[in-house]
């Protein structure tokens, strides 16, 4: 008797691709992803189609109402609000992912190492993490930026420093669950060392957790960058940065609300779309 052809238990399409397909069929995900990617494209390419130079002042037409020439009107210096809106995306679109990446790398490494080894290191590190988590992130950031002086690098490190403990705790929980699985024991049975265990055995299995955590952190990062620049601790004048523009536009809100509204709506659209994408990713990959 010849060997029976083994039935393919599962279709050849990898699971993650099926899941991505299912995600894209959900409007909340696909629309949010479209908005998010739209802002990324704008941040990279606004120079190609921006109607006016964002810094070009026009002394004769301050506070211009939205019109055909100025789609979203002009600000107190007569600068085109629409052009500044497009240009203002750059800082947040660069800073927020940078923060997220730093927080993910630091937090994941901490979570992987403490979760895998456990013991005294785990207890010590996790107490520090808990302590950091109890302090309001925004106060810490303001403090650090004031003491260290503001720069993009400090901004990224300060916010990422606040996020990393949160990432570490989530990743650690996931590592603790994986560590109990038989495949980890199987690797011990061939005397694998810690670095291999963490990097090759466990990391691939906690990757979904890390990626979803990243998406969630990205939403908070956008918000944190906007908040700090609103407080004047981000990019300085004459940058078209959204948070800065909102804070400066407050005083003109009675007569020229468009100055403040345009970047506010932009921030909201970005935060909401990032959060929705993160939510859907979490629902699909972690539950």
């Amino acid at each position, binding site marked *: *008797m010849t*060997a*029976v*052809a*083994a*039935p*393919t*238990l*599962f279709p050849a399409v990898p*699971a993650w691709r*099926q899941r991505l397909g*299912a995600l894209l069929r959900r409007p909340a995900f696909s629309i949010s992803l479209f908005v998010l990617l739209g802002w990324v494209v704008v941040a990279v390419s606004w120079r190609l189609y921006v109607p006016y130079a964002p810094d070009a002042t026009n002394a004769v037409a301050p506070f211009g109402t939205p019109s055909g020439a100025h789609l979203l009107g002009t600000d107190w210096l007569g600068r085109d609000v629409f052009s500044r809106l497009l240009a203002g995306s750059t800082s947040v679109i660069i800073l927020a992912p940078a923060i997220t990446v730093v927080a993910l790398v630091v937090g994941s490494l901490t979570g992987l190492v403490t979760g895998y080894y456990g013991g005294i290191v785990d207890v010590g590190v996790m107490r520090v993490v808990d302590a950091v988590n109890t302090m309001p992130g925004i106060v810490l950031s303001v403090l650090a930026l004031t003491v260290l002086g503001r720069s993009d690098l400090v901004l990224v490190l300060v916010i990422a420093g606040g996020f990393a403990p949160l990432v570490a705790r989530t990743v650690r929980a996931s590592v603790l669950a994986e560590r109990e*699985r*038989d*495949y980890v*024991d*199987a*690797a*011990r*049975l*061939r*005397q*694998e060392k810690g670095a291999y265990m963490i990097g090759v*055995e466990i990391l*691939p*299995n906690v990757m979904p957790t890390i990626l979803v955590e990243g998406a969630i952190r990205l939403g908070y990062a956008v918000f944190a960058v906007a908040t700090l620049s609103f407080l004047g601790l981000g990019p300085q004048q004459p940058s078209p940065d959204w948070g800065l523009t909102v804070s400066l536009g407050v005083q003109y809100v009675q007569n020229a609300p468009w100055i403040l509204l345009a970047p506010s709506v932009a921030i909201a659209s970005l935060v909401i779309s990032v959060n929705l994408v993160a939510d859907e990713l979490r629902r699909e990959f972690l539950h």
Partner: protein
Amino acid sequence: MLAVSGLSVTYDTRGERRRVLEQVTFQVGQGDAVGIVGESGCGKSTLGLAIMRALPKNGHVDAGSVVVGGTELYSLPTNLLRAWRGRALGMVTQDPTSALTPSLTIGQQVAEVYRYVNGQSKREAMSSAGDVLAAVGLAPPRSYLGRYPHELSGGQRQRVAIGMAVAAKPSLLVLDEPTTGLDATVEAEVIDLVNSLRGEFVNGLIFITHNLGLVSRSCNRLEVVYAGRVVEEGPTGELLGGPAHPYTAALLACLPRPGARAQAVRLPYVPGSPPVPGEVLAGCKFAPRCPLRGEECTANEPLLVTFGTGRNVRCVHPGRAGTALAPPSSRQKGGRGDVLLELRGITKRFRSVLACDAVDLIVRSGETVGLVGESGSGKTTVARIVAGLTTADSGSLYWRGELLAPDIAKRPRAVVRALQLVLQHPDTTLNPRHRARSILARTRRRLAGPRRVEELAASVRLEPHHLDSLPGELSGGLKQRVAIARAFAGQPELVVCDEPVSSLDVSVQAAILNLLADLQSSDQTAFLFISHDLAVVRFLSHRVVVMYLGQVVEVGETDDIFAGPRHPYTDALISAMPSMEPGQARAVLGERAVTAVPEQGCVFQARCPHKLGTVCEQDPPPMRAGDNGHTVRCHLSLEQLAEAQRLYQPVSGRGCTVPSTSMSTRSL
């Protein structure tokens, strides 16, 4: 009473429609107990859910009807369904833990049935709940009503679940694998309970299981299901005595028989696995795996035809099934050699639980030692200590007479290579992100294995294309083969196997057992084989070690242990073995209390049917030595034990009579 006719069910998975049940027709008469058997993935559970009208959202009934007591289930309006179903149908599922709400007391949950179905007041419902708990053997009920599910053992939880299912005295009770995951001793009790409820609480029973031993004890009719179709049906005795369908015959042949020994014979088994739902196969769905298949089999799907009185079979060659499987082939007997591994006084405590209490154990080269006991007896802890994954609190391990480091990280590579472990759960034993090939290649490199990955795969009968699969794409049996190949990568001298087949279907189990025995005869590998399944242990082992609550209570050659005299606990385990033979397994033991090991005296005193009295409560029992190194830890002498077993043994077959519990052993 229940008539299922032409029932076809489809699942919608990610836009694809997969047919899981095809034109299923059968009846359950008044007082009937019908067993539905088949391998996993054949649609048994779906059938159970369809009978309850409780299919998951993506399941649709395409055709057919389910009539219970004259009412067509699927034409009932949904607002009437719940109340009607509560009175007509009851269901017990596999996992009693998830069937009960952790945040409500047992009493509240059982009383709910009476309040919603029978409309009783809170007080009435609670007293009815007490009555039903007493009926399912949880006495006194008062002490159970106020408890939460986590305070009960698995067997007790399943009793509660059964109590809830029969509370409204439904006409039909559906049991879906109600004893999977329970120990054999507890399983026997639950089955006795279900049998005792027939008549008083329920009129008909549907018993869904993959365990043919169970249905033979509790069902009068069987429906054998394969690929969503009934392939054979008939009275239990006739059907098991002379199966007419090759599939039924194969399922039966896979079970290790009492006389068969792995050292001498190979179990017959069916290659392959059931078709995936939705897979299009011309003709008979079993043909690809059938040893009898011919061209006529793949032309048209065979119809269910009458075969004797009350029997139907869906086969082109009805009745030729008996000749289908080749007779078991024989195997060369290997010899047993020097002592490989020795455990001396191994003790391990997890907080308050004494998992191993001064365990002594010897494994010789080329030998299989079966380690048996209920869950919680410390079997797995012994395996992990031997493998170096857990370190003992005290005691020592010796490898070929030399002291062995307790932690695997400190053992010399040569010993690591020679002493390997096959872990318990096929679903987590392979890293889900690593392909079979890379798993084997890495192990081979680490353990300096002599054989190439392809040779390793071939030695466990894996096809080359399986090597490029991720574990998620492999079935349980295939995953376990990869795990076994991994353990054999460094040409080990001793492999510890921790329940390697307990989660697999019987057909797959037979293939894995053959594989282990083949590897033993070709490589002279010794096994420490841990299992709660005595039939498997008897088939595979030269010697058996029995553990209870962390203590070794008996050691001996397999034949000596099965012949007796033996420890009362071993006797209980053997009595509870499901068997194809007529008669019933006996549940001789009271269920083990959740409380821990007794402070002093014999560990088995609380459940022992032959307890002598205070001596068992106060003094540790002596080790009684018999022939061939047979030792029993008991206050009764071997002669007394033999006498006790003879008195307990029924006249014909095994366990036809339930012994009177009042039998006094003091007179022995």
